[in-house]
């Protein structure tokens, strides 16, 4: 319990630090919002009146508090390019990013865990060696080149899906999930390779434990030993990595959305950087950073619940 409180407090502090940095970078550095709004030909009185009405003359901490309060109430400011509230602009994009994340995490999870155990089980055999080399090669491919290869091999050459097609979730939900699938695979592949390597190491170090011999001598089949007894213990060190990957996936893959032409948060972020639409940029970045921080902390807490042997330090 003490650990839980300590962890939550430190998480909130980190979030405050990050949000303050974001505020500094995007609200203070870009220059005088009044001048950029009214143009350089506005008279000093007009500028002054605008600054006063927008509260730009208040000291920085007051402005930060107001900015933060707005965020907590779901008011992310107004987009300078579209002149509409940022929150409304983001909701569609968030749907795409979140579904892509969930889909790729499922794909990743149900392939990497069994594969990792199998690679460890057959590590001396041809299967283990080949898949080890394969994992290393997959890790060397940049995620967006994986995406391009998928489009080239399965989309253009084998014509198994139509590249760059997007179905809105309102039109056909299954079609929506289907058009996200290639992108989900591209996100998942390098992560599968990472986890398989870690899990293999972890399983190999568990193989020699006493409880494994006990399980064998009680007559358990080798599959039962590997997937029931060993996996449970081997998962413990892997949990942290799984958490990091979950955080990374939930934050969205900026590059993969670009490769597959998906209208998610990442693509919107890139186009907003191009048009210097800072309210949008800061909202999306804050979302991505917050997701990573919150999930990582939740996983740390979960880690202690799963394995009470770990002492609080």
């Amino acid at each position: 319990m003490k650990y839980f409180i300590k962890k939550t407090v430190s998480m909130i502090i980190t979030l405050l630090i990050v949000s303050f940095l974001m505020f500094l970078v995007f609200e203070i550095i870009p220059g005088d919002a009044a001048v950029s709004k009214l143009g350089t030909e506005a008279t000093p009185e007009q500028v002054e009146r605008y600054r006063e009405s927008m509260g730009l003359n208040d000291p920085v901490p007051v402005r930060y508090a107001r900015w933060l309060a707005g965020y907590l109430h779901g008011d992310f400011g107004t987009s300078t390019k579209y002149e509409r509230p940022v929150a409304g602009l983001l909701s569609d994009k968030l749907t795409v990013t979140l579904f892509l994340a969930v889909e790729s995490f499922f794909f990743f999870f149900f392939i990497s865990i069994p594969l990792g155990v199998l690679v460890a089980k057959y590590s001396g055999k041809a299967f283990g060696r080949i898949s080890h080399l394969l994992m290393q090669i997959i890790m060397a491919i940049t995620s967006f080149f994986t995406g391009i290869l998928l489009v080239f091999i399965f989309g253009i050459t084998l014509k198994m899906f139509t590249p760059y097609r997007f179905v809105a979730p309102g039109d056909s939900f299954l079609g929506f999930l289907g058009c996200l699938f290639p992108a989900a695979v591209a996100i998942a592949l390098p992560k599968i390779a990472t986890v398989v390597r870690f899990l293999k190491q972890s399983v190999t170090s568990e193989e020699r434990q006493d409880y494994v011999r006990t399980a064998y001598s009680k007559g358990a089949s080798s599959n039962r030993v590997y997937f029931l007894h060993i996996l449970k213990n081997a998962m413990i060190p892997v949990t942290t990595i799984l958490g990091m990957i979950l955080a990374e996936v939930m934050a969205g893959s900026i590059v993969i959305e670009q490769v597959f032409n998906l209208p998610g948060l990442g693509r919107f972020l890139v186009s907003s950087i191009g048009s210097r639409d800072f309210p949008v940029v800061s909202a999306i970045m804050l979302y991505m950073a917050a997701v990573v921080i919150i999930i990582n902390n939740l996983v740390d807490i979960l880690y202690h619940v799963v394995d009470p042997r770990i002492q609080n330090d």
Partner: protein
Amino acid sequence: MKKIKRFIVTRAKGFKEWFKQRTVTERIGFCILFLIMLMVLISFFYLPYDPTKMDGTAKLKGPSPSHLFGTDNFGRDVFSRVMSGLQDTVIIALGIVAIGAFFGSVIGSVTGYIGGLFDEAVMRINDAMTAFPSMLLALVVISVWGAGKYKVIIALGIAFIPSFVRIVRGEMLKLKDADYVDSARLMGVPTFRIIYRHIFPNIMPTLLSAIAVGFNNAVLAESGLSYLNIGVTPPEASLGSMLSDAQGYLLNAPWYALAPGFVMIILILGFSFVSEGRTK
């Protein structure tokens, strides 16, 4: 003359011995890296074609003896462009790792050696920075500051510092209470000299494999940024920005995208083979 000959002979023998001691993975890795560095060196002096010269008569031609990797939509030679793109990618990645490793080592070794409250404060900031994905950190810098080769190096270089701080500090904590450090301290060696002369050489092996891994991450991060067209700006082209140009021609000219992509894979495999061999 004889002296030079003897020098070369002994060096070659030493190299042979050194090479024999490596694992097979490591040998393959070093061979790949040697070839790539050779390509980069050659690209400074010689390219088969001018990578920016357009040729209207040879648009999107397939691979042939005169154009090894074919030509792109402007009739530029893809092989020459890959070579100069590789040069840019390698230089940018080296710059990023150099910034990250240098400042990371300085901060990490000082904070690890001093310890106490100072260490606590530095590590708290460091952890907050690691919680932030390096790609996002670079995006923040670039979105305010604009794109460009040197800005990418600085933005990603800063983003790479925290991981090196953590590694060097960890090693420092392990080594600072070793007997030989104590005896050096008793002999009155100044703190600065203890850190860089007595402890640092022992951190080097760990640092080197961290640098190999970091180099790969730098290549991946840089190519990601350049792919999004917020990294290097045209006419300069890294492998990542070539891929984003080439993606539109995947149907008619797949070689244009595949060539830079595979060169990038080989580059990264080289470094990961070397770093994996070291850790074994």
